């Protein structure tokens, strides 16, 4: 799993490339924490996340909870229909702000 961070406007966009499962989850969690800014807006781009397991979803939720306790505001984008369906059926979707694009994310988080 590769993580990339870029700044677009005032927003930190982190894209996740590869598989997020029990093998990669602990590392991804550490790396994500390192890439998170102290404050501001973060959009997690999952459009190149090929596979998301149960453990992967837990990483996302942990990251989201951490963001809630800081001043960072977080949105997800690029959910594949499969991942979206799984998140919907298990209730994970309800925790997140989910947007169709990075641009929409900026808008959703700044409103």
């Amino acid at each position: 799993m590769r993580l990339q961070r870029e700044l677009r406007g005032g927003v930190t966009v982190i894209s996740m490339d590869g598989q997020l499962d029990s093998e990669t989850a602990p590392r991804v969690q550490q790396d994500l924490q390192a890439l998170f800014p102290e404050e501001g807006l973060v959009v997690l781009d999952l459009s190149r996340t090929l596979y998301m397991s149960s453990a992967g979803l837990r990483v996302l939720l942990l990251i989201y909870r951490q963001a809630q306790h800081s001043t960072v505001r977080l949105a997800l984008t690029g959910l594949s229909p499969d991942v979206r369906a799984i998140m919907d059926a298990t209730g994970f979707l309800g925790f997140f702000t989910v947007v169709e694009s990075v641009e929409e994310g900026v808008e959703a988080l700044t409103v």
Partner: protein
Amino acid sequence: MTILEPIDAYPTQRIAGYPVRAGRSLPFGATRVPGGVNFSVFSNHATSVTLVLYREGEPEPMAELPFPESFRVGSVYAMTVFGLDVERLEYGYRVDGPRRPWQGHRFDPDTVLSDPYARMLTGHGPYRHRSRVTLDDFDWEDDRPPRLPHEDLVIYELHVRGFTRHPSSGVSAPGTYAGLVEKIPYLRELGVNCVELMPVFEFDETDNVFTGVNYWGYSPIGFFAPKASYAATGRDHMQVDEFKHLVKELHRAGIEVLLDVVFNHTAEGDERGPTISFKGLDNATYYMLTADGHYYNFSGTGNTLNCNHPVVRGFVLDCLRYWAAECHVDGFRFDLAAILGRGADGELLHNPPLLESLAYDPILRDRKLIAEAWDAAGLYQVGSFPHYSRWSEWNGRYRDTVRRYVKGDLGVTGELATRMVGSPDMYSRRGAAATVNFVTSHDGFTLRDLVSYDHKHNEANGEGNGDGDDANNSWNCGHEGETDDPAVLALRARQQRNALLLLLASRGVPMLLAGDEIGRTQLGNNNAYCHDGPLTWLDWGLRERNADLFRFTRRAIAFRRAHPVLRGGSPGSVHWHGVRAWSPDWAAHSRVVAALFDGGGNDCVYVAANSHWESHTLELPAAPRGQTWHLFADTAAAPPMDAFEPGSEPPLANQSQLSIGPRSIAILVTH
């Protein structure tokens, strides 16, 4: 904050290439621990136990790890295995021991067994009985069980798949826990505040020699495992999350969740049945056996779980605690619960330790415990089930009495009166919550079929119509089965309302069968356990086609919820009337009776029942406290005048008389 790593998070040796150490005996099952997974399994008579690990979906094991003798404490084998990827792991146990069926021992080391404590089974395909390890964390946020008073429940019995599997359901994941979440607004609109889910423990859907289908699932395999094929995410092994999400969403809507649980037998059958788990782990402990090692069959399905054996009792208790504490389930309905009061030889116990343990268990204290208080061997304990002031019962006598009254049998009016006030002949000291009243359940005719068929029509079950109950107390209203005769249809519509209205105006906890509020039919099949198709799935088109019946049921539920006096109270709060006020006619030929439930204030309800085919004019008692009578419901009236919105009932023009139509029920309320 620094979290210290536990000092036993390191292996001490390798077995079959895997780093391991002696495990912790408790809890049983597979539990994630720092760095690994702790496996613990019980067998009293085994000579050796081997942990079998598979990479998911692979036919052959990736490793077999025999438990060293030093890893055994008593009869519990425990081992912590490090470095496993639990998301891609499947496992089971290979257990050897005596092969002496006449002594009760059926060990078979060629079979890899399910872990009885597994919280997930693979659930599909050729390896469907393999166990899996769960990530059991879940973000419940501030979920709180509604903790509704038992007598305030309106229970709705449903089959998770059948409720939304029909294409007409319109949900995104038909036939699943997630699909049910999408129907919560429907449940809210109907007004029920409790769902009772037919079995959701893993069972084998192919377990039936006649049709090859077991739809109902009263033959469990994995008692801790929510059924994977009821989860939209089952193939991604997230059924536990999906189930918990369902409970959380129902609670958010104020709806409690009861599980229909089957602890009387398992899917392993008798001598001819498969070895899946218990039979190979410790047959002589888990099952009731005759002196020569044959299976007692009090369940009618081949075997009987030896549930008052101390080990099995612990298993049942662990299981219910898991569903209550970890999955936030609000209560349980116990299938063939009379068996749970039997000892190892099937004898009736006077103080059954299992039932007592459940009644006094600290975790289960606020959970509803409902017994189906009979079994398949003729033990009938409705009214006499060992209750410890905690257990309530499916009241089979309520069902039979209301059915007989509604179809017009003579000589049941007096008994109907007893059933309407909470069956005090059976439950006087226990209050209204002790009786779960119902007219229909999954087991038998649907309500529409109850008024459409004199006889069961189970030909499609492949048993020559020999299965299913013959004593249904049903009446087809003049024509057997489907018809377009308007007179017959009108009578059936009224008879369905009569049954629903009596049920919802009786003291005790009413239970509705899902779909009865919109006229679901199984075409006369009264034992549809073996059909997973349009015959058993709820057709949501009925919601529009029978909108009148839905509205009637919704109003009757709302009326009940608006009137505490219908849910309980002292015997002195009910007064009986007949054609003459204050003069009930308890003679055997009487078909008319009226109950005045007076809870004081506006909580005063008059329920008049007439099972005669003629109308009658009833003299009304004066409405108490200077109030006036208003008409809530009259099943003889054409919809939508058959029931009014509670709170907006129109006043009765004639305050001294009520004309009640043929075969109908009317309800008045004071304002």
